[in-house]
């Protein structure tokens, strides 16, 4: 305040771009990009060696090298068919699917939190994941497996429209109203999913219901890797390149509009992108909660609120996070397996509570 009142000169002196003015400590946050890439690579390489089966690290590498056509070149003996199948057909697809799903969900979380200016927004809490699960289960029951990602997308879009519509119908769209509306939509979709499975399934319907509602990558195949991986690479990259646009929403719709953003069009394009990606991911993994909620908040502590680094870093750390969560899910109570959603909820729910507490002003 004093600075302005006491200054005589009507015009500011030329300002250097140097270190004169205190620069935020976060300027160095770009270094986290190589760090997060390294973390992800190490995560995948280490996680693939962890597991209950009687396999050594060397065995695992022999299998992978063999499939990459490097076995001969490295002079490695091929692994036995059973063990090889365990690595190549079970563990690796599972880990890569978890990585793709984790990255995609984290990006979805960032985009939703920005566009709705709601720190509690994520595909799970707002009901998109449950809607996608319902869509997926419906086509599986009918037997139209080919339509799986499309149906999941349809379910996610319907859930999104229902949640935002309901929140808007209550009154002004506040974060709390959005979450409450999302909860209603999510519960309804989850109940419908359970009902459909009970009605149709002949075998272990409990397990199947659980894997759709809590999420699981236990059944991941190379097809899962392809669907989740391509969706995350294509849609995730598109969404992650919208940093400047999302930045413009920091102070709300009017500010975004005044900064040259076509608010209604951008909002719907990006939310449809989020629904598309969520649908593709959920069709392979069921609805895994809290990844999209907590990763963006954790990464903001490193990068600040601007999106240029927040988006890619959330994706990269989200990938590592879900790989480790799934590794815990399959090893902690081995030979029993937990749905990975139990692990992410155990970590995410307390963080959610913390966010509620921190954001109590915005209710």
């Amino acid at each position, binding site marked *: 305040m004093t600075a*302005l009142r006491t200054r005589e000169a009507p015009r500011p002196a030329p300002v250097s771009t140097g270190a004169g*003015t205190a620069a935020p400590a*976060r300027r160095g946050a770009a270094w986290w990009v190589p760090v997060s890439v390294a973390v992800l690579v190490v995560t995948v390489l280490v996680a693939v060696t962890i597991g209950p089966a009687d396999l050594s690290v060397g065995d695992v590498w022999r299998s992978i090298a063999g499939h990459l056509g490097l076995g001969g070149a490295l002079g490695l003996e091929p692994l036995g068919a059973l063990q090889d199948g365990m690595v190549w057909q079970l563990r690796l697809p599972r880990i890569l699917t978890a990585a793709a799903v984790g990255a995609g969900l984290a990006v979805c979380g960032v985009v939703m939190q920005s566009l709705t200016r709601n720190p509690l927004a994520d595909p799970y809490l707002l009901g998109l994941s449950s809607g996608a699960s319902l869509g997926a289960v419906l086509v599986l029951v009918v037997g139209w497996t080919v339509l799986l990602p499309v149906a999941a997308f349809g379910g996610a879009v319907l859930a999104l429209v229902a949640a935002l519509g309901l929140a808007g119908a209550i009154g002004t769209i506040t974060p709390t109203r959005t979450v409450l509306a999302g909860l209603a939509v999510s519960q309804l979709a989850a109940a419908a999913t359970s009902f459909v499975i009970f009605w149709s399934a002949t075998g272990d319907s409990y397990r199947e219901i659980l894997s759709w509602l809590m999420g699981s990558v236990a059944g991941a195949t190379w097809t899962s890797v392809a669907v989740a991986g391509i969706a995350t690479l294509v849609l995730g990259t598109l969404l992650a390149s919208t940093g*400047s646009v999302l930045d413009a929403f920091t102070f*709300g719709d009017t500010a975004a509009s005044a900064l040259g953003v076509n608010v209604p069009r951008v909002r719907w394009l990006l939310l449809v992108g989020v629904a598309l990606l969520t649908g593709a991911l959920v069709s392979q993994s069921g609805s895994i909660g809290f990844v999209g909620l907590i990763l963006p908040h954790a990464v903001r502590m490193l990068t600040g*609120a601007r999106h240029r680094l927040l988006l890619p870093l959330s994706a990269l750390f989200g990938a590592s996070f879900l790989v480790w969560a799934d590794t815990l899910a399959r090893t902690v109570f081995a030979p029993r397996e937990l749905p990975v959603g139990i692990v992410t909820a155990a970590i995410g729910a307390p963080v959610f509570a913390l966010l509620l507490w921190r954001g109590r002003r915005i209710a």
Partner: protein
Amino acid sequence: MTDVRTDVARDLAHDLAGGPGATGADGQGGIDARRVSWTVDGRLILDGVDATAPPGAVSGLLGPNGSGKSTLLRVLAGVEAPSDDATRVAFDGADLLGLGRRRRARVLALVEQDATTDLPLTVLDAVLLGRIPHRSLLAGDSARDHEAARAALETVGTSAFAAREVATLSGGERQRVHLARALAQEPALLMLDEPTNHLDIAAQLDTMRVLRRLADDGVTVLAALHDLSLAAQTCDHVVLLSGGRVVAAGDVHDVLVPDVLDDVYGVRTEVLTHPRTGRPVLAFSPRD
């Protein structure tokens, strides 16, 4: 900042090439809005408003609650589309609403009321948001962006807390940051909605002084103001709205007179003269 604004003027002249000359002696510069109408749910909020804001002046948009001040700013800024095809908004002779959004955001900046965020955003980062219209969507901040942001922080006297988080600032400090963010856009036209709301008197005068300095540098400034006395002290030109129509417009001395104010606000107004500045000082009492 001066250089910067010359750039903008050149940019704009380039953008608007072919149109009538910019701020000339013919008085065609600044904002010239005609027949601005806006309806919501069948309710007419703005009813064919004609308003001007001359270049190089601080213009005040005045009027009672609900008279349409904020709405008029939002329509002029292109945030809301006018509901009547006859609406024309010219700036320095060119069609402001006809410009593309991004191009318009390089000419015009809008400071809203009470904009806030819960995100961990530093003041410098908040001000850098003003550079979004000036760079490609995929690019990061350039040195030029940082230079503009720092100059804007300097102009409003907030350089000292560039590294602080916006959420930790007082109302007055936050208002300055929003002003700095608008200045980082390097606008030739600055619109503000109640920029002095919730500020103490010193901060109010500071804000108005910044606006004055910008006007002196050639920026067209249009601010919706609630406080008639502050407007009387600080504005050159005022537009008085009531019920979505313009009641009076022109020089403060001509518009802020008892007859007009008594009629619009339903009060009794005395106009005194400030002993030092010679500007009008308003005193209000209830009508019996």
